[in-house]
C-alpha cells in the first residue's frame, strides 16, 4: 500500500470507528480551542483588530 492509500485507509477506519457524538463534541472543542489560541487579529469571532503586519481578522460572510 503506498503512502496516499495508507493515509486514506487510516482516515477511513478512524471515521468508521469514531463515536459520532464524541466526534461532534471534539469538533466543537477544536473550534473553541483554536479561537482562544489565535492572536486577536486572526480571530473570526471578534471585532476587527489590526495586527503588527497590518493584517485584520475576517468578518463572517454568512456563506
Amino acid at each position, binding site marked *: 500500500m503506498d*503512502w*496516499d492509500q*495508507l*493515509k486514506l485507509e*487510516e*482516515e*477511513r*477506519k*478512524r471515521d*468508521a*470507528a*469514531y463515536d459520532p457524538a*464524541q*466526534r461532534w463534541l*471534539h*469538533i466543537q*472543542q*477544536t*473550534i473553541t*480551542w*483554536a479561537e*482562544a*489560541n*489565535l492572536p486577536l487579529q*486572526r*480571530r*473570526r469571532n471578534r471585532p476587527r483588530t489590526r495586527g503588527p*503586519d497590518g493584517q485584520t481578522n475576517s468578518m463572517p460572510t454568512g456563506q
Partner: protein
Amino acid sequence: MNVDAILQALDREQVDCLLIGGMNFLLRHRPELTFDVDVWVRDDPVNLERLNRALRSLDAQWGPTETEWRAVPDDWRWLQSQVVFCLTTEHGALDVFRDVRGLEGRYDECRQRALASVTGTGVKYAALSDQDMLACQEALPPSQRKPQRVEILRAAIQRANNR
C-alpha cells in the same frame, strides 16, 4: 478536541515530536478548519516507547480494521508496523507520522529549524517551520495541494527573508 491535553501528554512523556499539518498552519498563519492534531515523531525505539505511554495516558484507540478498534497495546512495538496512524483519543483525533512525505529521513534537520512554541495556556510544543511546511505541500500531487496554504507560506518565507 482538547489540543492542550494532547500536547501536554506528549510533553509530559518527553516525546520528541513536531506539530505539523493544519493545526500548525492554523496557529501560525490563518484560521483553517482542521479536525485533528498531526505530529511527526522521532522514529527510534526509545521515543516510540515514550509515545506509546503518552497515547495510553490519552486513552488512544487504533485498530488494523475498524472492527478491531481498541485501546493501544501496552507493548510499543505495534508502532513499528506502519509509517502513519490515525487514532482516536479521549481528547480528539490524533495523526502520528513516523516519517513525512517531502521530508523523508530529515527529522533531525527539521527539528533544528522547528520553532519552540507555547499554547495560550502555556503548553510547550515544537512546530514545523514554514520552509518545511511548504516542502510538504510541494511534495503532494497538484490535485492534493492546498493552493492558498502554499501561497501564504511562500509569502511568509519571503517576508522572513527580507527582514
